[in-house]
C-alpha cells in the first residue's frame, strides 16, 4: 500500500475505513514528506471549502421542505390538469387533483391565451422563463403554466384544444382576434394563398386579412404565414409596408417574421406573423396597398422572390385596402415615381426618381428623391461617391446645386452592396430673388477622391456625364403661404432625436434631413443662460434655434426644448447645490420659460417642463422629491407659457422609471398618479416620458420574477421600455386623460463606447451595435403602432462625438449602424423594379395538398423519430439519425399513393407534418431533420409525447389502416405523457404501432457539439417498446446496424402492403 495524495485526501475527507486510517496515521508519524503533503492538501481543502462556502444557501433563503412540497403538489396538479385537458380524457393520475372545475379550466385557458399574446412580444426573454418561478399565489398559476408551455412546441394547438375541452367542443377555428394561430404545421383554410418563394429557402404561403374595409384610426389586422423550406442559417428580417393610393410609403414594419429568428425555424413549420397596421385618421380615401419581403438582417440585402418559378422582384404585393372615411382626399403633391436606368461608369445607376411638384416659387426648394442602385460590377476603386443635382438655365449656367454623398462603406455595416438601392432625398433651396422661368434639373455623380464626374455608360455621347431629369418652372414667391404656422400635432407620432446644442448644428441639421426626422430635442440649461439675476446670454441659443428653425422655408424641423437646471441664486438656501434643483419660487421658473416661449415663438414648438423630477438629483437633494411641488411648478409654467404663446405645446417632465426608495426617488408611476392628485391634469398638453431600455428589447414585457439573476436590470418593471410606456398610458386612461399623447422625450439603448465608462453604464456592454439598431427601429415602430405616442426622441444623435467621456456617449448614434438603418428605413423598401401580384386563386406548387373530405387512400402512416442528442451515436453509419433518415426516405419512396406523416421529438415534439401525399415535400423535410441538443447535454426523450402527436394526426383520418412507426434509442425520460397510456389510446383508435429500438449492444461513441466524446451504453427500454407493440397489434424490432434498420422498414412495409 502506498501513501499517495489520493489516499491522504481520502484520509482528510474521512473516507478511509478504520484499518487504512490507522495505517496512514502510522505512516504519517514517521514521514516528514507525507506530513508536508498532508499540510498542502489540508490547505487546498480549506481553500476549496472557503470558496464553496460562499455559494451555500443562507438560512433565510431556504424554504421549509414541507412548504416546498406543497408548492410542488400545486404545480403537479396544474400540470396534470393541463395534460389531461390536452388528451381530452379523464385524468388517471396517481396524485389527487385539487381542481376539477370547468371554471378553473377556463381560467387557465385565459391565462394561456394572454400568455400567448405576450409570447409574441417576448421571445427573447422567454427562454429564461422555465427557470423563473416564484411559486406563490396566482403567480404560481401563471408561472407553472408558462413553464409547462415552454415544453410544448405546439402551443397554439394546445390552447385551441384547451379551449375546446373547456367550453366549445365543436369549435375548430382560431378566434378572429388572430391570437390563437399555432405553429402546428397547419394553415387556416381561408387564407389568401401567395406561395412566394424567397431565394428558394422561405415560402410565404399566404396571408389572412381580417378586415378589408377599414375606418381610419382602426388597425388593419394582417397575418402572414411563412415557412422554411430548409434549415436556414441566416436571420432574415421581414418588412411589411403600407402604401397610400399615390404609392407613397405610409408605414413600414421591420422585424423577424413572426418574431422568431429564421435561423431557429424548423423546416416546414408554419410561422404565423401577425401585424396590426394602424391607419391614422385623416387619410384620404382610396386603395392602399400592402407589400412585404425579406432581407438579410446583416447586410440588408433583399431576397429575390419567385412565384411559380417566375421572378417577381424583391417585394410582393399582398392586398389592397380600401379606406373609406367619406372625407375629401388631400391633393397628392408628389409625382409618381419614375423608373429609369441611367448608368454611371458601370458603378452606380439612377434606378428611379420622384419629384415633388415641378412648379416652385422662389424662396422655396426643389424636392427630389433619387433611387441610387449600386451596379454589380462596381469596382473597389469607386467606393466613395458624391451625387449632385443642379438647376441649370438655358445658357448652361448652374444657378443652384446640391451635393449629397452616397452611402459610404460603413465599418459595421459593410459597403453599399452591389445591387442594393438607396433612396436619397435632395432639397435644393432657391433663394428669394431666384429668376423666374424654366430650368433643367440635372443629376450626376462624382468620385470623392478624384473629383471626377462619372461618365454615363454605355453612351455614344462620350462627353455626357450629367443626366436630365425634369423641367422645373420657377414662379414668383408666394408670400403668405410660407409663414403659415407649422403643423406640430401633439398626438401624432413622429420621429425625433436629441442633439447637442453645443454640437455641430449645421451638420446635425443635415443629419436630420438625411434621417427624415421631424423633431429635435435640445436641453436648455437655465443657469447657463441666466447665471446671475437678470444677466442673460441668449446668443448661442438664438443661433442654434435659428439654424434649426429657419433653414428652408418648407422643411419643418420642430424643436422641443427641455428646460431645467435653475441657477443657484434662485434656489433655496438649504438645498444641495451639487445636484440640480427647483427654484425657491416656482414663479421664477415660470417667468424664465415664458421668456423662452415668447422669444422663440414660431421657432420652438414644444417645451418640456423640467425632467427626471422624481429623483433627488434633479430636485435639490435627497428627501426633496415632491410631486405636489412639481405640479405647482408645472402649473405656473403652463399658464405663463400659454399667456405669451398659446400654440406652444407644454410637455410634462419625463420621469425616471425607477423603484429606488426614498430619500433617493419615488416610483415614477406613483409620482405621476400623485401629480394628477395634485391637479396637474389641466397644465400639460402631452406627457413626457423617459423610457430607457437598458439591455432589454423594447417589446419585452416584464411580468415578475428575475429572468436572469446574473443581470441586474431585468427583475423590475422599470427596466423595460414597454412596461413603462404602457404603465403611463394606463395612468392617463385612469384619469380620463387618454386624449393626451405620451411623448417619449428620451429613450434609447446604450452601446459601450469606451472601457472607462461610468460603472453604472457598463450594462451597455451587453448591447451590441446590432441590438441598438434593431431595438431602436422596433421602438419607433411600436410607438407608431400604439397610436397614442407623439414624437419619440431617441437619445441621442451626437453626444458620442461631442461628449465622448460622458454617459450620453453610449447612446449616440452618429457613425453607427443605427444611424444607417434609420436613414435607410424606407429607402431599402422602395420598389424600383416591376412586380407581379400573384393570382389569388393560384395553387401553390409546394403547398401541402388541401385536406379533402373524401379520401380514397386506405392507409395513413406516421413515422415517429427520436432526434434527441444520443441519436448522434456512431454505432450506425454515419450515425443513428443519419441512418434512420436514409432508411425512412427509402420507406417513403415505397409508399406511393399513401399518406405518410412525420413527427420528430426529443424532450418535446420538435416537428410534425400531417400525413400527406406530397412525398417530395416530405422527403425534403426528412432530409432537413437535425439533432436536438439541449445546451450541450444530451436532451431528453419524450416517447409518450411523440406517440401522442402521431395518434392525434391519425385519429381524424378515415383510413382503414392506420399505423405508426416509432424509432428511438432511449428510454422515456421526458414529457408528461406515459408511452403506455398513449399506446392505450392508439389501441382504442385502432392504430397499430410498430416500435424500433436502434442501438448496438454495448457502448457506442457519442460525440457532442462541443467536441466532447462519451461512450454510452444503449438505454433502450425494450420492455416498454415491446409492450406498446403488443398492446396495439404491432411488432417490436431491434436494429443494431443500418442494414438491420433497412430490413425492418422493408418488413414493416411488406406487412402493411399485405394488409
Amino acid at each position, binding site marked *: 500500500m502506498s501513501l499517495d495524495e*489520493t489516499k491522504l*485526501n*481520502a484520509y482528510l*475527507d474521512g*473516507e478511509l475505513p478504520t484499518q487504512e486510517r490507522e495505517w496512514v496515521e502510522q505512516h504519517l508519524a514517521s514521514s516528514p514528506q507525507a506530513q508536508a503533503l498532508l499540510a498542502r492538501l489540508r490547505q*487546498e*481543502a480549506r*481553500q*476549496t*471549502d*472557503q*470558496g*464553496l462556502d*460562499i*455559494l*451555500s*444557501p443562507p438560512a433565510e*433563503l*431556504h*424554504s421549509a*421542505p414541507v412548504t*416546498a*412540497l406543497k*408548492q*410542488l403538489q400545486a*404545480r*403537479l396538479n396544474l400540470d396534470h390538469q393541463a395534460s389531461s385537458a390536452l388528451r381530452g380524457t379523464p385524468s388517471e393520475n*396517481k*396524485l*389527487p387533483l385539487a381542481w376539477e372545475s370547468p371554471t378553473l379550466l377556463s381560467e387557465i385557458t385565459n391565462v394561456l391565451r394572454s400568455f400567448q399574446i405576450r409570447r409574441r412580444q417576448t421571445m427573447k426573454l422567454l427562454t429564461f422563463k422555465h*427557470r*423563473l*418561478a*416564484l*411559486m406563490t399565489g396566482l403567480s404560481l398559476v401563471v408561472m407553472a403554466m408558462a*413553464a409547462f408551455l415552454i415544453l410544448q412546441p405546439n402551443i397554439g394547438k394546445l390552447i385551441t384544444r384547451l379551449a375546446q375541452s373547456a367550453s366549445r367542443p365543436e369549435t375548430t377555428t382560431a378566434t378572429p382576434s388572430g391570437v390563437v394561430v399555432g405553429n402546428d404545421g397547419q394553415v387556416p383554410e381561408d387564407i389568401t394563398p401567395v406561395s412566394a418563394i424567397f431565394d428558394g429557402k422561405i415560402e410565404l404561403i399566404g396571408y389572412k386579412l381580417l378586415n378589408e374595409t377599414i375606418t381610419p384610426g382602426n388597425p388593419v389586422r394582417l397575418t402572414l404565414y411563412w415557412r422554411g423550406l430548409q434549415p436556414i442559417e441566416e436571420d432574415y428580417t421581414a418588412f411589411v409596408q403600407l402604401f397610400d393610393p399615390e404609392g407613397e410609403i405610409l408605414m413600414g414594419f421591420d422585424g423577424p417574421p413572426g418574431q422568431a429568428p429564421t435561423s431557429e425555424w424548423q423546416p416546414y413549420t408554419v410561422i404565423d406573423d401577425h401585424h396590426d397596421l394602424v391607419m391614422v385618421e385623416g387619410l384620404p380615401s382610396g386603395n392602399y396597398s400592402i407589400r412585404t419581403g425579406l432581407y438579410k438582417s446583416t447586410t440588408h440585402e433583399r431576397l429575390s422572390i419567385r412565384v411559380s418559378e417566375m421572378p417577381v422582384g424583391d417585394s410582393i404585393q399582398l392586398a389592397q385596402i380600401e379606406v373609406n372615411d367619406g372625407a375629401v382626399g388631400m391633393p397628392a403633391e408628389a409625382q409618381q415615381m419614375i423608373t429609369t436606368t441611367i448608368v454611371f461608369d458601370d458603378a452606380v445607376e439612377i434606378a428611379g426618381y420622384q419629384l415633388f411638384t415641378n412648379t416652385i416659387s422662389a424662396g422655396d426648394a426643389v424636392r427630389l428623391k433619387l433611387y441610387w442602385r449600386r451596379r454589380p460590377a462596381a469596382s473597389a476603386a469607386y467606393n466613395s461617391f458624391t451625387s449632385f443635382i443642379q438647376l441649370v438655365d438655358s445658357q448652361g449656367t448652374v444657378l443652384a446645386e446640391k451635393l449629397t454623398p452616397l452611402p459610404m462603406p460603413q465599418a459595421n455595416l459593410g459597403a453599399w452592396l452591389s445591387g442594393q438601392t438607396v433612396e436619397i432625398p435632395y432639397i435644393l433651396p432657391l433663394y428669394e430673388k431666384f429668376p423666374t422661368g424654366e430650368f433643367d434639373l440635372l443629376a450626376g455623380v462624382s468620385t470623392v477622391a478624384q473629383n471626377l464626374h462619372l461618365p454615363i455608360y454605355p453612351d455614344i455621347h462620350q462627353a455626357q456625364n450629367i443626366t436630365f431629369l425634369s423641367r422645373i418652372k420657377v414662379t414668383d414667391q408666394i408670400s403668405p403661404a410660407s409663414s403659415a404656422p407649422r403643423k406640430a400635432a401633439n398626438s401624432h407620432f413622429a420621429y425625433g432625436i436629441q442633439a447637442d446644442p453645443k454640437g455641430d448644428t449645421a451638420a446635425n441639421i443635415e443629419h436630420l434631413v438625411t434621417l427624415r426626422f421631424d423633431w429635435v430635442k435640445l436641453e436648455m440649461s437655465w443657469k447657463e443662460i441666466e447665471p446671475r439675476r437678470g444677466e442673460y446670454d441668449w446668443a448661442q441659443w438664438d443661433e442654434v434655434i435659428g439654424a434649426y428653425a429657419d433653414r428652408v422655408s418648407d422643411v419643418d424641423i420642430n424643436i422641443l426644448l427641455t428646460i431645467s437646471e435653475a441657477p443657484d441664486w434662485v434656489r433655496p438656501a438649504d438645498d444641495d447645490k451639487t445636484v440640480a434643483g427647483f427654484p425657491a419660487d416656482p414663479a421664477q421658473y415660470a417667468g424664465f420659460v415664458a421668456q423662452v416661449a415668447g422669444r422663440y415663438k414660431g421657432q420652438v414648438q414644444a417645451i418640456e417642463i423640467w425632467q427626471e423630477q422624481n*429623483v433627488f438629483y434633479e430636485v435639490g437633494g435627497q428627501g426633496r422629491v415632491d410631486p405636489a411641488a412639481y405640479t405647482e411648478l408645472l402649473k405656473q409654467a403652463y399658464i405663463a407659457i400659454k399667456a405669451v404663446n398659446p400654440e406652444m405645446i407644454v410637455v410634462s417632465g419625463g420621469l425616471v422609471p*425607477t*423603484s*429606488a426608495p426614498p430619500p*433617493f*426617488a419615488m416610483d415614477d408611476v406613483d409620482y405621476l398618479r400623485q401629480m394628477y392628485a395634485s391637479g396637474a391634469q389641466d397644465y400639460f398638453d402631452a406627457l413626457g416620458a423617459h423610457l430607457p431600455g437598458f439591455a432589454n428589447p423594447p417589446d419585452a414585457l416584464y411580468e415578475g420574477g*428575475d429572468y436572469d*439573476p*446574473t*443581470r*441586474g*436590470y431585468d427583475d*423590475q418593471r*422599470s427596466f423595460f421600455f414597454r412596461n413603462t410606456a404602457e404603465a403611463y398610458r394606463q395612468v392617463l386612461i385612469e384619469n380620463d386623460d387618454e386624449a393626451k399623447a405620451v411623448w417619449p422625450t428620451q429613450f434609447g439603448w446604450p452601446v459601450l463606447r469606451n472601457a472607462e465608462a461610468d*460603472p*453604472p*453604464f*457598463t*450594462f451597455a456592454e*451587453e448591447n451590441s451595435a446590432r441590438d441598438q439598431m434593431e431595438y431602436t427601429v422596433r421602438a419607433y415602430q411600436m410607438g407608431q403602432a400604439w397610436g397614442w405616442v407623439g414624437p419619440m426622441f431617441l437619445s441621442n444623435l451626437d453626444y458620442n462625438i461631442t461628449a465622448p467621456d460622458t454617459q450620453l456617449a453610449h447612446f449616440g448614434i452618429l457613425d453607427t449602424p443605427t444611424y444607417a438603418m434609420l436613414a435607410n428605413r424606407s429607402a431599402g423598401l422602395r420598389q424600383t423594379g416591376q412586380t407581379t401580384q400573384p393570382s389569388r386563386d393560384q395553387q401553390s406548387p409546394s403547398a401541402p395538398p388541401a385536406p379533402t373530405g373524401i379520401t380514397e387512400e386506405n392507409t395513413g402512416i406516421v413515422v415517429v423519430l427520436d432526434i434527441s442528442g444520443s441519436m448522434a451515436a456512431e454505432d450506425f453509419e454515419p450515425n443513428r439519425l443519419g441512418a434512420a433518415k436514409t432508411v425512412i426516405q427509402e420507406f417513403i419512396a415505397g409508399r406511393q399513393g399513401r399518406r405518410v406523416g412525420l413527427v420528430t421529438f426529443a424532450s418535446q415534439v420538435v416537428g410534425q407534418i400531417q400525413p400527406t401525399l406530397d412525398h417530395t415535400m416530405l422527403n425534403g423535410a426528412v432530409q432537413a431533420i437535425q439533432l436536438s441538443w*439541449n*445546451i450541450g*447535454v444530451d436532451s431528453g426523450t419524450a416517447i409518450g409525447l411523440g406517440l401522442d402527436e402521431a395518434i392525434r394526426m391519425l385519429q381524424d383520418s378515415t383510413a382503414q389502416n392506420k399505423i405508426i412507426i416509432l424509432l428511438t434509442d432511449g428510454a*422515456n425520460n421526458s414529457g408528461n405523457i406515459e408511452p403506455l397510456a398513449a399506446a392505450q389510446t392508439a389501441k382504442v383508435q385502432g392504430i397499430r404501432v410498430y416500435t424500433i429500438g436502434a442501438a448496438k449492444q454495448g457502448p457506442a461513441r457519442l460525440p457532442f457539439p462541443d467536441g466532447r466524446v462519451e461512450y454510452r451504453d444503449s438505454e433502450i427500454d425494450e420492455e416498454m417498446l415491446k409492450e406498446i407493440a403488443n398492446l396495439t397489434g404491432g411488432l417490436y424490432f431491434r436494429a443494431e446496424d443500418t442494414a438491420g434498420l433497412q430490413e425492418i422498414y422493408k418488413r414493416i412495409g411488406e406487412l402493411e402492403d399485405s394488409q
Partner: protein
Amino acid sequence: LDAEQTALSNVELVRQLQAGDEASFEALFLRHYERVYGIVFRLLGNKADAEDITQQVFLKLCYSPERIQVQQEGTNIAGWLYRVAVNEGYNVLRSQRRRANWHEKLARLWPFSQLSGDPARLIESQDSQARVRQILAEMKPREAKLLLLRHSGLSYKELAVALEIAPGSVGSLLTQAKRIFARKYQSAFPDKE
C-alpha cells in the same frame, strides 16, 4: 407523515413509489429536499431559480419513478436525485448569457433600484459569488460537479453514483479538482491567504 414511513428505508420508499404510493413520494421529497436544494442553490445562487429547479428534479422522480433501479443499498435514489440536480442546475448555469459582475449590479443604481440591507455588503457578497462561479465555470464540468456535490455533503460512494464514475476514481479526481480550485481561488481572492 407518520413515523412509520419516515422510518422506511430509501429502497422501500422507492419500491412503494413505483407501486403508485403517493405518501412515499412525500417521504422521499422531505428526506432529500434540503440537500437537492443546497446543490442547486450553490449552482444558481438564487432562491427562485433554485426552488424551481429543485421542483423539476422531484417532478422527474414523480413522473418516472421506474427509472430508479432498486438495489440493496439506499444510495441509488440519493445518487440519482443528486445527479439530476447537478445536471439540471448546470444546464441552467450554462445557458445564462453572462456572468455576474459587480458592474452590472451597480447598474441598478441607475436608475436606482431595490437594494435591501447595506448595498455595499450586498454587492460585495454578490461579487464573491460571481467569482467563485467563475472559477467553477473555468473548470471541467465533471470536476466542478464533483466539488459542488462533495461540498453539499455527498460521500465518495454517493459521488460515484451521482456522477457515474467508478468508485475507485472518486478520490483521485477529487484531489485533483480541489487542487485546481484552490489554485484558482487563490488568484481570485488574493486577500484571503
